[in-house]
């Protein structure tokens, strides 16, 4: 028996049979498909149901990465790489940029402008899905030919032969389209400046003109038990200075009063406070008594 006859007798086995011979994919590809397909469908449904826009964007990214893996499994490695670079890398990141620009919390309103639109949409989608799946299932009888011949010189080379051979004019047109799109985006997002730009000098002059505070605002108070930002400083007249506390804390109502941070007597020295208070007001220590004492509660402005 000659060696060549021996080779022809070897059966490649069910796992190694090619697509052309059996009309079916390999077992490994089948496993890959059944792992990725549910993930893709669930992630795509996340786009329908996600309340937060960023979650929707991330689920679309997941769908696109899974699609790239499927492309590589389907003998299209060039498209798989392009899918990752163009879609996941460029398009979805552009989406995320615009999300950050427009506002992440821009959520949907739940009010229907057209009554029953939701149910009509669901019915139409299900009908379209049924039609599409029915049409696609008619392709079940087609005997697949596989891409072994077309991909003989690696897939990118084969794709390049088709693009720069049969479709070179379409490629030129697409190049023009891309440049037009870039220019269009520049024009659409450009904003004409209607008035002169406010620089540092203009701001300073406007502040002087309107008589606002020219100096820096006073720093927060430093006390024996606290030097935090929420404790107001005391002015020369003994009143707490509201402007020494950051505005954000005042708006939130997180400003502390001086009474909260004032020194508390240690155990066993309470009688000294009474002695202190018994002295009463010392005459001649100031023409304007404080409206609010340092121990009183002050309203939050």
């Amino acid at each position, binding site marked *: 028996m000659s060696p060549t006859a021996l080779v022809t007798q070897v059966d490649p086995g069910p796992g190694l049979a090619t697509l052309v011979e059996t*009309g079916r*994919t390999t077992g490994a*590809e089948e496993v890959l*498909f059944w792992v990725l*397909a549910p993930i893709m*469908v669930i992630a*795509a*449904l996340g*786009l*329908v149901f996600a309340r937060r826009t960023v979650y929707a964007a991330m689920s*679309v990214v997941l*769908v*696109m990465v899974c*699609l790239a893996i*499927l492309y590589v499994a389907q003998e*299209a490695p*060039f498209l798989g790489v*392009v899918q990752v670079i*163009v*879609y996941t890398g*460029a*398009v979805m990141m552009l*989406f995320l940029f*615009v999300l950050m*620009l*427009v*506002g992440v919390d*821009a959520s*949907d*309103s739940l009010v229907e402008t057209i009554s029953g639109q939701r149910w009509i949409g*669901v019915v*139409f*989608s299900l009908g*379209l*899905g049924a039609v*599409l*799946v029915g*049409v*696609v*299932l008619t*392709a*079940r009888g087609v005997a697949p*030919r596989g*891409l072994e011949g*077309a*991909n003989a010189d690696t897939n990118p080379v*084969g*794709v390049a032969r*088709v*693009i720069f051979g049969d479709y070179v004019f*379409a490629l030129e047109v697409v190049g023009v*389209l*891309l440049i037009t*799109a*870039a220019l*269009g*985006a520049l024009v*659409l*997002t450009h*904003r004409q400046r209607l008035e002169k730009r406010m620089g540092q000098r203009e701001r300073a002059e406007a502040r002087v003109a309107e008589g606002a505070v020219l100096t820096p605002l006073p720093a927060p108070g430093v006390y024996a038990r606290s030097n935090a930002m929420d404790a107001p400083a005391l002015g020369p007249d003994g009143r707490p200075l509201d402007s020494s506390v950051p505005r954000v804390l005042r708006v939130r109502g997180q400003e502390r009063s001086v009474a909260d941070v004032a020194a508390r007597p240690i155990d066993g020295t309470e009688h000294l406070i009474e002695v202190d208070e018994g002295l009463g007001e010392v005459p001649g220590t100031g023409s304007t008594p404080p409206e609010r004492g340092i121990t009183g509660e002050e309203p939050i402005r």
Partner: protein
Amino acid sequence: MNLSNYLVLSAVLFTIGTSVVLLRRNAIIVFMGIELMLNASNLAFVTFARMHGDLTGQVVAFFVMVVAAAEVVIGLAIIVAIYRTRRSASVDDANLLKS
């Protein structure tokens, strides 16, 4: 596994993309639904290329990707321009031509 499983998956993804366009109000999410539909059709193109042993399907999918990239750039620029003037990204609020 028959190759038509890929086509069924593509049809399902296309349907989900359609329902996103029909059901959601946020213009950016509607846009992502359109992207999903384009991706689903690309998967069908790649599968067809493999079925027929012809790389033209992959080339068409490549062109779809390029055109989709250009479309996303313009669409997102329009959304940003509308948001600047209307402070809203909802498709229901862009009704200036109505009354």
